[in-house]
């Protein structure tokens, strides 16, 4: 018995060592671990203090990751000096390891669910729980000041724990998170005396009322940014007014929709130093005197650079915004249901605009104006305005994007929803703007070919990847054959993230991508007809990527098992309503999520997530029902 446990302990330590080693050698396939004497030599030439000082100039985490691979001494120095820690997949590494590795950690950023969770493709209860991280940090890194979470499940307990454990806590930014209520927010507001940032971006919150706002300390606050735009319920005007009056450092304020237009003026008067403003609803009726007061209050915001909110903006209120337009660098009209002529009215005054989010109500004509007037534009997003997407009488076509690509020399990031497209347009766009870093085109009709030539959009996307050498992120759509992916594999060498839906013909599609795109880190695919071969042949590639998501493809359960066995440092998750074990190996699975990890198998998988480590289940699994 004793020898068995000794063997087990030895195996465990060996495994742990290997794990730590892989943790160290994360990104690179080359390893460099010099002998002890080398590192001693390094110390003699570059004492820790000097190295530390040099590293303090290295900000980017990618650079820091590279630095930490040079030698042991650099690894040690780097880890002791890293303040901002970014973990792109919360299941790739254990919270404990991260806490131990970075003793000076002040800021932690985590991402949980896969991106397609935004579109309801990941069932509720899949995972992405913040609690283990917060617990680990609370115990080991009490000096943590900032927590930024994206697509994670955050409970009120998490928020209360944060409030109770980190005495210098300054910044909480939750994006697309869920699982908490306004009570948790109240805990943060009341307890974190040094709070600077409280931002809830597109979260799903159990909204129990607007009381949380009254929990901020009565004495002056240190708030710099406050974003509660995703909450539904009303906050008390007096609470808000008083909060603004005692927050002299507040630079960014994003109100929720229930803050009505008639009170906006009174709020702005108390915060003339704002740089970013997200208004509430912009559609209530105001009398002329109120309008003129609001106009004046807005014109007093001399520092204002960013404007958003503007829910249901009425055309008659557009002149109210004239005074801020010339200074604006960022404008989010994606909730403003304003039609094209009024949009032109507004946008023609925004000559400094760098970022524009707008609905397709802008139409081609409006985008032409943007091309003429907004010469500083770097980012454009055009969202659909109709929920009934098959029938739209808005004239936004591919021409709009072509005009903007012609007129705006600095344009580098695009998200464009359009009903149909042409190859010619894509080729023009690519020719005009080889400086694209992010190109996301969503042709909303699946399998839509070039509507003029009836050809697939292969040639169009070929132009994009050929010319835009710096392309980091790409979303393709429309009718695409395997050829399109051959082009992407050949040309898109800097591409890091690729999203595909309803495309391709066969396994070749996946093979081209996995064997060609050298920098690929995140690949997400839905409803494409490829199967096991390409996946298994390119298994090694998966360890160089953060994650791969596939849903409604033809990958079989047998292939998933094989992949899991072949690649122990990947977590292969099959997310399927029916437990795959009761099915033949050749049957296709609904969804697969594969990601590299040094943390080993997840221990918090729900019933409908299968991994190779799971014990056989009895009976039919049921999805978590809300």
């Amino acid at each position: 018995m004793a020898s068995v446990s000794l063997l087990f302990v030895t195996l465990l330590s060996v495994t742990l060592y290997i794990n730590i080693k892989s943790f160290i050698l994360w990104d690179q396939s080359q390893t460099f671990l010099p002998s002890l004497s080398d590192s001693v030599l390094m110390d003699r030439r570059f004492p820790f203090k000097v190295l530390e000082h040099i590293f303090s100039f290295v900000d980017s985490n990618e650079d820091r990751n590279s630095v930490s691979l040079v030698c042991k001494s650099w690894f040690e120095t780097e880890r002791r000096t890293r303040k901002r820690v970014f973990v792109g997949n919360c299941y790739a590494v254990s919270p404990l390891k991260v806490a131990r590795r970075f003793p000076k950690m002040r800021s932690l950023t985590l991402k949980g669910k896969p991106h397609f969770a935004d579109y309801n493709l990941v069932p509720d209860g899949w995972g992405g729980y913040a609690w283990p991280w917060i617990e680990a940090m609370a115990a080991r890194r009490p000096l943590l000041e900032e927590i930024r979470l994206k697509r994670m499940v955050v409970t009120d307990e998490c928020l209360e724990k944060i409030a109770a454990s980190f005495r210098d806590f300054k910044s909480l930014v939750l994006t697309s998170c869920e699982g908490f209520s306004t009570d948790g927010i109240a805990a943060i507001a009341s307890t974190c005396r040094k709070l600077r940032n409280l931002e809830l971006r597109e979260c799903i919150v159990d909204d129990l009322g607007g009381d949380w706002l009254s929990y901020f300390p009565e004495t002056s606050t240190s708030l710099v940014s406050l974003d509660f735009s995703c909450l539904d319920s009303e906050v008390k005007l007096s609470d808000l007014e008083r909060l603004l009056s005692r927050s002299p450092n507040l630079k960014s304020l994003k109100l929720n929709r229930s803050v009505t237009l008639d009170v906006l003026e009174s709020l702005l008067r108390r915060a003339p130093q704002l740089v970013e403003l997200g208004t509430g609803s912009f559609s209530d009726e105001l009398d002329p005197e109120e309008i003129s007061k609001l106009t004046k209050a807005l014109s007093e915001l001399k520092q204002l650079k960013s404007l958003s909110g503007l829910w249901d903006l009425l055309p008659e209120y557009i002149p109210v915004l004239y005074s801020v337009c010339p200074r604006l660098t960022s404008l989010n009209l994606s909730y403003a249901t304003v039609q094209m002529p009024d949009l032109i009215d507004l946008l023609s005054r925004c000559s400094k605009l760098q970022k524009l989010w707008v609905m397709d109500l802008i139409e081609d004509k409006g985008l032409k104006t943007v091309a003429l007037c907004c010469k500083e534009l770097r980012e454009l997003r055009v969202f659909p305005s109709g929920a009934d997407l098959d029938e739209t009488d808005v004239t936004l076509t591919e021409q709009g994007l072509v005009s903007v690509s012609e007129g705006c020399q600095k344009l580098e990031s695009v998200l464009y929803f359009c009903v149909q497209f042409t190859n010619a347009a894509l080729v023009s766009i690519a020719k005009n703007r080889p400086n694209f870093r992010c190109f996301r085109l969503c042709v909303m009709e699946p399998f839509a070919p070039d509507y003029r030539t009836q050809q697939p959009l292969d040639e169009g996307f070929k132009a994009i990847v050929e010319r835009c050498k710096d392309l980091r992120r790409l979303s393709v759509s429309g009718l695409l054959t395997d050829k399109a992916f051959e082009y992407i594999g050949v040309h898109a060498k800097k591409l890091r993230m690729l999203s595909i839906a309803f495309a391709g013909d066969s396994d070749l599609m996946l093979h081209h991508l996995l064997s060609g795109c050298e920098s690929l880190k995140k690949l997400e695919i839905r409803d494409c007809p490829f199967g096991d071969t390409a996946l298994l042949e390119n298994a090694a590639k998966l360890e160089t990527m953060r994650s791969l998501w596939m849903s409604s493809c033809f990958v079989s359960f047998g292939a998933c098992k094989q992949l899991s066995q072949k690649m122990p440092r990947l977590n292969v998750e099959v997310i399927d309503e029916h437990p795959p074990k009761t099915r033949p190996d050749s049957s296709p699975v609904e969804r697969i999520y594969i990601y590299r990890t040094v943390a080993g198998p997840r221990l918090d998988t729900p019933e409908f997530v299968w991994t190779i480590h799971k014990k056989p289940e009895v009976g039919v699994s049921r999805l978590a029902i809300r």
Partner: protein
Amino acid sequence: MITELEMGKAESELELGLGLSLGGGTAAKIGKPGGGGAWGERGRLLTAKDFPSVGSKRAADSASHAGASPPRSSQVVGWPPIGSHRMNSLAAKSAREEEEAGKKKVDDDEPKDVAKKVQVGFIKVNMDGVAIGRKVDLNAHSSYENLAQTLEDMFFRSKPGTIGLTGQFTKPLRLLDGSSEFVLTYEDKEGDWMLVGDVPWRMFTTSVKRLRVMKTSEANGLAARHQEPNERQRKQPV
């Protein structure tokens, strides 16, 4: 004509033909020996044939589809890829437009205001035991049978990209006559849950807010209506 996998096909031989008939795309055939039965037809992709309006005029192709309407792009889960906050905002917006349209109109026989882009037609459908609901376009249907057929296709036939697959039922369901394990119910504008099928179709489409495919065993409180056909006859709307 939605699926190329006919039920009657030999279970030992399953061919998933991807005929992309548009744009001169190649038609690749992937032959996969099926395991058999319900599992064999799972994981079927939506192909171009499922979106007949592609490349042609945008008219609803109801003539050639007996009973069931083809899946429109807005009925596929997670498509188009718009975040849920934005989706909710769009839905709320059209609900408000619908309300305003309703207030302004005296005659409310027409559920759809053609002048505005109103989403009156689409309503949510949830099924017991299925986490994620779907949406169905009432305007694309002309009768209860029509609607029941679509819902049966939605929840009981294989469609990828959804989680609502039960996959176990291979015979046609009878959602409307109470003979199957599930019944179809709806919530009307007053918030009451009723069995579908009692009122004339037109009246139904104006008063329905959302649908629910409920287990017959749980629909007991509503069962009374079903057992009294005479009373149903008498309850003609004014």
